[in-house]
């Protein structure tokens, strides 16, 4: 059972410890109530790097979600790929879509939004939110990518599995019976 060479285990342990010590790890002794930010301060010869909690910049402008659905389902919006002010909320500064544990959307909405985001990127509407090595100008792209393209939102198809389809049918039937 224990025939793994020692050097290997040592390496793994060192990697683990390095992971634990980095400020990116999600470990914290106190209850996390606010967002985190890494701050680097210089005091004379010392460089102090510390993670600290800051209030969310979106706190004042957040729409309250009182229902049990995800925020997009409860608002029932018809989002187009040109609505960059909405789509940029689901995107990191380098332009990649945030995962579902961050956005808090249901799987269906997450799939739709991620496709809308990719459409907006292809149409060159969110040039601000691109990696640093990006050319930042859609007309400098290669081949057909440099010309203006728009997209049809009805081409986004979300396939439900059998279980969610049945669930939706049951709810619809119930609504019809109750004449809601």
């Amino acid at each position, binding site marked *: 059972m224990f025939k793994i060479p020692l050097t290997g285990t040592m390496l793994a342990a060192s990697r683990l410890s390095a992971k634990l010590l980095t400020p990116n790890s999600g470990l914290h002794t106190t209850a996390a109530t606010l*967002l985190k*930010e890494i701050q680097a301060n210089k005091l004379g010869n010392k460089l102090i790097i510390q993670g600290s909690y800051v209030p969310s910049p979106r706190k004042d402008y957040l729409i309250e979600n009182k229902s049990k659905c995800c925020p997009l389902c409860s608002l029932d919006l018809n989002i187009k790929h040109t609505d960059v002010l909405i789509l940029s*909320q689901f995107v990191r500064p380098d332009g990649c879509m945030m995962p579902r544990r961050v956005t808090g*959307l249901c799987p269906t909405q997450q799939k739709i939004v991620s496709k809308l985001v990719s459409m907006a990127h292809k149409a060159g509407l*969110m040039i601000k939110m691109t990696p640093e090595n990006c050319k930042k100008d859609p007309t400098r792209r290669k081949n057909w990518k440099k010309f203006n393209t728009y997209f049809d939102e009805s081409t986004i198809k979300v396939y439900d599995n059998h279980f969610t389809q049945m669930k939706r049918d049951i709810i619809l039937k119930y609504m019809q019976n109750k004449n809601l």
Partner: protein
Amino acid sequence: MSQFGRVKQWNTFARCWHLFDATWQNPLQCSPLIEKYLKGLHKPIYHPFVDCGDHVVIMNSKQIAFPGEEWRRRVYFHHTGYSGGASWTPAWELHEKDPTMIFRKAVYHYMKGNLFRRVVMERLHIYPDSNVPEEIMENITNQIQPLRPIPKTLDSYSNEEIEKYPKIIDYPQDYLLSK
């Protein structure tokens, strides 16, 4: 003929000049609209044998837009007449060589083929950018309304506008903000 009647006659048979801005417009969807003005279909005196069409000036034809994968899927065919002279050019390659050609072809192919078609096409003036000659620009009296709205990019909004826009989601509690 009375003076008023004479002015009415001038107005009905005068050729108007219409301007059309093609930025973010699909030429295939715009061609019916432009055909209407070129042939004079919007006039009550219209008849196929009456030469009552107007001029249309299209500017910014380099900025036209196609949906989805149309730029590489749409192919233009040409045959030189010799054996092995057939060639297929994707829309993006044609647009690189001549930015006015796709729009001209779209309008030309939309119209019904008869002897009047070439005459009507002579009244269509297409320019790849907004540098329209002044001798043409001074004739223009009307602007055709574009079909699609021009999408606004994120850069066109100020930072304050983006910050103060209503937010749908908030970051989770232990989200690491990057600077």
